[in-house]
């Protein structure tokens, strides 16, 4: 009852002409900025902050929140159409989204992405409203040992990410971990493999690797097939039509990954990127037909798209209830609150209930706006694929370049991007999967730091990893996840002696 009253109060705040307008402007600006190369929620919010000077605090945060989830929403477009993830949260989206687009189903893929984003966003806002205060304790219950175990769990899923040789998948993953060791080590300040180059001090940006390995490598393939049409036959690329059975098929992933995405979003440090990968991996693990993943399986698109938007709402939990920013994006949001004179902290709910409930209520509205805004646009956006290949290829290259430059403003990073493009192409040529590399890169850095933080705190006592029940259960699941495919592989090998090359799940 109390929640209902609070919610009504929230809607009272939102349903003024001015605030509805701000929600609209926010999601519109967010979507458009999100579609631009390299510009994710962080830049989108930072750009909008000066606009909020002198605004009413609730309106300002409503605007910023709209920009935030709008940008996550818009980020999937380039992932699906061009295999060029503009932000880290949408890399997993490209795994099945881009194959769908290549099959001439770009409209459908975009529509599924939009619907899943909407559903993930909306379901997680309900969760945010109902359980935010309870989840606050959960958010701080994760410390170094828990994060280590969580990252390890993600890493053990690598074998299942790839078709073909497990050895090659493991080599890719090791390479990802090696790349993650470049830069200043956080625990000791030691420079690792930077060769005295200041551009490498903070390591290599995730976006460079993703755009290089995925988008630029794909550009090479497109160059070789530039004489052929993008897709066979006369497809209606812009068609949004989703059949009833498809709708049924994605309803499962939507339900599962709204929850998973929200939970991972709540954890400071996990965020949308890790949530989308974990969702993709778990969806593949439980699938009856895992080999169709990566070839345009709509579940493989629905899972990460639901998850990254759900994680976005989750990230508001520590911000609104504890005043702790859980990610780079919420840290910028926190800055935006300071600008309008609100001190975020544990007392925000009592001091500024209008901000707290107003923002939550505005998110319902924002998600509806996003859907209404985006669905009619899809047929036009999907037509990008009708651009003649020769022209499209050059545009994609520029898109990647600006994406990287707009984040780091350094040409050194552009050379790196080109280097990773070449690496990505060579990996394709020699059948090394790229996904394990990027996954290991994301998880590896945090895994190493958490491991060493935990041991510093415990004075080198490894027993610290058995002290928390969460850590122990995550470690057990990791062990299971690691051994299961091998056991399964051995069993199927016994039955099928000819197929001696297939160790992967």
């Amino acid at each position, binding site marked *: 009852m109390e929640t209902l009253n609070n919610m009504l109060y929230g809607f009272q705040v939102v349903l003024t002409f001015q605030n509805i307008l701000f929600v609209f402007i926010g999601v519109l600006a967010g979507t458009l900025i999100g579609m631009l190369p390299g510009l994710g929620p962080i830049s989108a919010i930072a750009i909008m902050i000066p606009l909020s000077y002198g605004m009413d605090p609730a309106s300002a945060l409503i605007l910023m929140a709209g920009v935030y989830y709008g940008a996550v929403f818009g980020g999937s477009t380039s992932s699906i159409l061009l295999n060029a993830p503009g932000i880290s949260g949408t890399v997993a989206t490209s795994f099945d989204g881009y194959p769908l687009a290549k099959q001439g189903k770009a409209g459908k893929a975009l529509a599924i992405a939009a619907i899943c984003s909407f559903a993930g966003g909306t379901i997680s806002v309900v969760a945010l409203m109902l359980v935010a205060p309870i989840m606050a304790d959960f958010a701080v219950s994760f*410390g170094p040992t828990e994060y280590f175990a969580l990252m390890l769990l993600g890493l053990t899923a690598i074998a299942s990410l790839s078709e073909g040789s497990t050895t090659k998948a493991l080599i890719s993953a090791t390479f990802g971990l090696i790349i993650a060791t470049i830069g200043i080590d*956080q*625990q000791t*300040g030691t420079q690792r493999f930077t060769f005295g180059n200041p551009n490498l*001090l*903070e390591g290599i940006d995730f976006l460079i690797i993703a755009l290089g390995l995925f988008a630029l490598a794909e550009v090479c393939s497109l160059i070789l097939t530039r004489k052929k049409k993008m897709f066979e036959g006369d497809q209606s690329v812009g068609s949004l039509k989703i059949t009833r059975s498809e709708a049924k098929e994605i309803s499962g992933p939507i339900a599962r990954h709204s929850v998973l995405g929200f939970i991972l979003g709540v954890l400071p*440090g996990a965020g949308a990127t890790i949530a989308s990968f974990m969702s993709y991996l778990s969806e593949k693990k439980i699938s009856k037909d895992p080999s169709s993943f990566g070839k345009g399986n709509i579940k493989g698109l629905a899972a990460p798209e639901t998850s990254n938007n759900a994680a976005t709402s989750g990230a508001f939990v520590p911000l609104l209830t504890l005043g702790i920013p859980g990610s780079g994006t919420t840290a910028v949001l926190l800055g935006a609150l300071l*600008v309008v004179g609100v*001190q975020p902290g544990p007392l925000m709910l009592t001091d500024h209930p209008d901000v707290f409930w107003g923002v939550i209520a505005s998110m319902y509205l924002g998600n509806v706006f996003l859907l209404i805004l985006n669905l009619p646009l899809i047929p036009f956006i999907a037509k990008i694929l009708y651009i003649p290949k020769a022209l499209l290829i050059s545009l994609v290259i520029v898109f990647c370049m600006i994406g990287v430059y707009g984040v780091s403003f350094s040409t050194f990073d552009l050379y790196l991007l080109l280097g990773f493009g070449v690496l990505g192409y060579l990996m394709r040529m020699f059948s090394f999967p790229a996904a394990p590399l990027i996954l290991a890169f994301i998880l590896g850095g945090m895994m190493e730091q958490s491991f060493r933080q935990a041991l510093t705190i415990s004075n080198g006592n490894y027993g610290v990893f058995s002290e928390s029940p969460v850590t122990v259960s995550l470690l057990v699941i990791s062990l299971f996840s690691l051994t299961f495919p091998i056991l399964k592989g051995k069993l199927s090998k016994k039955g099928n002696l000819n197929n001696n090359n297939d160790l992967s799940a």
Partner: protein
Amino acid sequence: MFNKRSLLFSLVLVIALVLSACGSNQSSGNSGNNGNDGQATDDWKPEKPIEVIAPAGAGGGWDTTARTVSKVMEQTNIIDKRLAVVNKPGGGGAVGWAYVDKKGGNHTLFVTSPPILFVPLNGQSDLGHNDFTPIAGVIADYAAFVVSADSPYNNMNDLIEALKEDPQSISVVGDSAPGSMDHMQFVKAVKAGGVDVKRLKYVSAQDGSGMSMLLGGKVDVYSTGLAEATEQARAGKVKVLAITAPEPLEGETVSEFKTLKEQGIDDQFVVWRGFMGPKDMDPEAVAYYENAIKEMMETDEWKEQRDNFGWNDNYMSSEEFKKFLDEEYKTMEELMNEVGLKK
């Protein structure tokens, strides 16, 4: 595959465009130069948009300061050219500093704070404060040492006693690298209290998870900034053992925080922020920016933003700023030598 004619054509096109662009620009460059000469040198004014470098990503302290100052300057028309904030993240500032150094000139400024002393001392940047021109100090903030509400330590001396007994029994977390600000401000304080600082246990949480590690009971002490601590203390989630301000602060919650000096520990640490320019900046330009900043800090727009962020005014002229930096550098150098972190 491609026909030679089109390739040749493209090539000619490129060359033509490049030549024409550079040619036309060279002349415009020269004319700009003449304009510069024509102006009286003691009354320098910016002739084009000013680049304000925040040597970090969007949203951090440097970025916020840069954006706020640039916004107020434009709003109040103190500088009538655009002040474009450009983020140059990387290396704890080193990338941005290298950029400013390379760019030079009178139209590039950057925001800076104690890391310009720590990062070079850590061996992570070849450029230090002496490679730039101090323009003006703007604001001051202070460090706070925080424990969770149910911690056995109630004041700084409790903590120092425990650290004297066994430095390894207490874990300290901070958001910066070892040997950088959050670490050294704590080292400096407990050293003044007589602790053997060589054996301190410092955990670096650079993803900003320090506060959540403290609230979750994973670590004992969080070394952070005053602003981060205040709201949590007001809500009763944490206890602030000490702040590093020289004098007790005024304000609703912050007045309850005890300074180190009030607890008999002879130490203070100011987290200052200010603006610097490239080494070759003309003295006239330095004077121009110095005055502009001074003027800006007297506007109501600035005061409102400053209060929102909880900053304290700490104006220093270019000369004072330089002297202050030299002194601070010496103190930090000695300290880091002693801890064995200087590289």
